[in-house]
């Protein structure tokens, strides 16, 4: 430490620095664990939840300690956090939307395939014995 420190805190910021190094350790360890889990665990809801929880913990430490928000007045903390309710809403809304859109696309594809199968069957007077999923690709040769 330099000699020209004109100290304001009674301990010359030593406790602040200790807190910073502890936070650094926590963030590094959490990142390392995430990395290991990415290798060790198969994808699924459990892994997803673990990742999200660990990410939120890391976010908490960065915002609270590094960005010093944890030591600000309550009004400021809530003033910053509450708007993110909109983000939670957006997350739910767009997840539902993606799910809905995907289901529709799947239904459309199935209907199209069934339509192709039925026309294919009537044109040739065949019974639907062949149940191959690749009807769409097989169709051009039939016409």
């Amino acid at each position, binding site marked *: 430490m330099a000699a020209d420190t004109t100290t304001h805190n009674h301990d010359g910021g030593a406790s602040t620095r200790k807190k910073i190094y502890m936070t650094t350790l926590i963030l590094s360890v959490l990142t390392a664990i995430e990395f290991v889990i990415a290798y060790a665990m198969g994808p699924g809801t459990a892994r997803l939840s673990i990742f999200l929880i660990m990410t939120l913990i890391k976010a908490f430490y960065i915002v609270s300690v*590094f960005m010093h928000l944890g030591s600000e*007045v309550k009004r400021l903390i809530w003033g910053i956090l509450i708007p993110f309710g909109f983000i939670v809403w957006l997350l739910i809304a767009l997840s539902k939307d993606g799910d809905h859109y995907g289901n529709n696309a799947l239904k459309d594809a199935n209907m199209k395939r069934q339509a192709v199968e039925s026309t294919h069957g009537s044109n040739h007077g065949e019974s639907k014995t062949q149940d191959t999923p690749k009807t769409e690709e097989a169709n051009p040769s039939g016409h």
Partner: protein
Amino acid sequence: MAVSVDPKALVEGERPLFNVSYGKLMMWFFLVTDAFTFSSFLISYGSHRIRSVVSGVEWARPEEVFTHFPVLYEYFHIHAPLAFVGLMTFILIISSVTMVLAVEAGHRKSKKEVEKWMIWTIVGGITFLLCQAYEWYHFIIGTEGGALINGTLVHGANLKINEYGPQAFADFFFFVTGFHGLHVFSGVIINIVIYFNAALGTYEKRGHYEMVEKVGLYWHFVDLVWVFVFTLFYLI
């Protein structure tokens, strides 16, 4: 130093509502809006991915896409899935730490230490940008084998083609990491300005190093965003 508020000023209005200086409050406002932009990016990424998976189209697998690690790949042909991204995350976290140490040194008005930690923060930021350039390079040129899409052999990815999976994956990769990279880039430039101000004694004359704190908020935010990008884009 935190803004000096006279504790005796009990009359509402004499005391700032949030007990922070105007500049810091405005930086927080900006960061909240910027967080909304990044959230929208990441949430629409999730929406596209869910849509794709539900409709039966397989999404790209990040652990099979981001496998290049400098030296290991070029000289030993070893693939290290996600290792380089992990390193980038670590670099950004460390540069965030050096930034908060600069802020702490500013509280003690230690000019020399502020300069030292600002230099390290700038080095961390530039290193991160170089890593990102490396990663983009390999993402764009793609694998040697490439992938067959509609009968044509495709190498790498851009905004029109993508050998790794659905086109939306490549588009979001460029926009999310690109937008974040732009933030890192502007952060590095702002950090350089702050370094010179500190070195030239501007803050010493002013009597406080609050500018370091404000820019520090921005720099931590960039790190915060990357923590989310790392999880939501690379790990999941």
